[in-house]
């Protein structure tokens, strides 16, 4: 899977994304089960609630680290532009939806969906940014 990736830094970044994705599922499931079975409260409840977010935040830390250490200027520029595209798309979506929720009583969008929306826009930006540099 990683054979096409030349840079070790990029390989580490892709690996951490996959590991995070693999960790999130059991942690979310585990937290949901723990809340249902043990009716958690107090500090324990907060700790269990935060657990599923750790792999998600790890990806953000790894993204920052990768952008700081990547030596290939082109690769870094492409990723930065994709992240900026993702940022713009996410903010536009949350703003429009937020106002529709408040004014027009549109269905509520949970905060946990903001993160996947961001990566969706980053993914959409990628071919567009690559096209610019053809």
């Amino acid at each position, binding site marked *: 899977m990683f054979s096409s990736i030349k840079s070790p830094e990029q390989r580490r970044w892709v690996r951490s994304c996959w590991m995070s994705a693999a960790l999130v599922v059991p942690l979310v499931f585990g937290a949901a089960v723990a809340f249902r079975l043990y009716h958690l409260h107090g500090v324990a409840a907060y700790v269990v609630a935060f657990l599923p977010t750790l792999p998600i935040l790890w990806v953000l830390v790894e993204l920052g680290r990768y952008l700081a250490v990547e030596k290939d200027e082109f690769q870094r520029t492409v990723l930065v532009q994709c992240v900026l595209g993702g940022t713009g798309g996410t*903010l536009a979506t949350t703003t429009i939806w937020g106002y529709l929720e408040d004014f027009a009583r549109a269905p509520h969008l949970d905060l946990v969906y903001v993160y996947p929306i961001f990566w969706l826009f980053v993914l959409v930006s990628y071919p567009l940014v690559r096209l610019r540099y053809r």
Partner: protein
Amino acid sequence: MEDRMLFIGMPLLVANIAMAIWGIGYRHLHAAGAYLPAILFALMGVAFIVIFGLYLKEEQDEFQRDLWVQALLWGIGATLTVITLWGSLVEFELAKGLKLMFVFPLFMLITCIARLVLRLRYR
């Protein structure tokens, strides 16, 4: 051009956010009539994003652009962190929900703080 648009847009955006916080003018609009003001208010935020994107594209000063890009990256990283943590607490009913429209002001606040810190770093 972008400066002038921001000069007009920023106070409107701030007034808009203040209205959202205190709920002024909300909740008594119905059906189709409610969509128009919602989209108009949201367009202010979207216009701000587009203008900022144009500014970044046209900025000739490499240093200034790099400073803004770094601040924006810190802004989105920290915003996603806060939103994800808060979202998780809401999912498990440990915190009250945050209005989705506050994601943008939160991002702007963090980006401005990051820009100030970065400027201090490069002094």
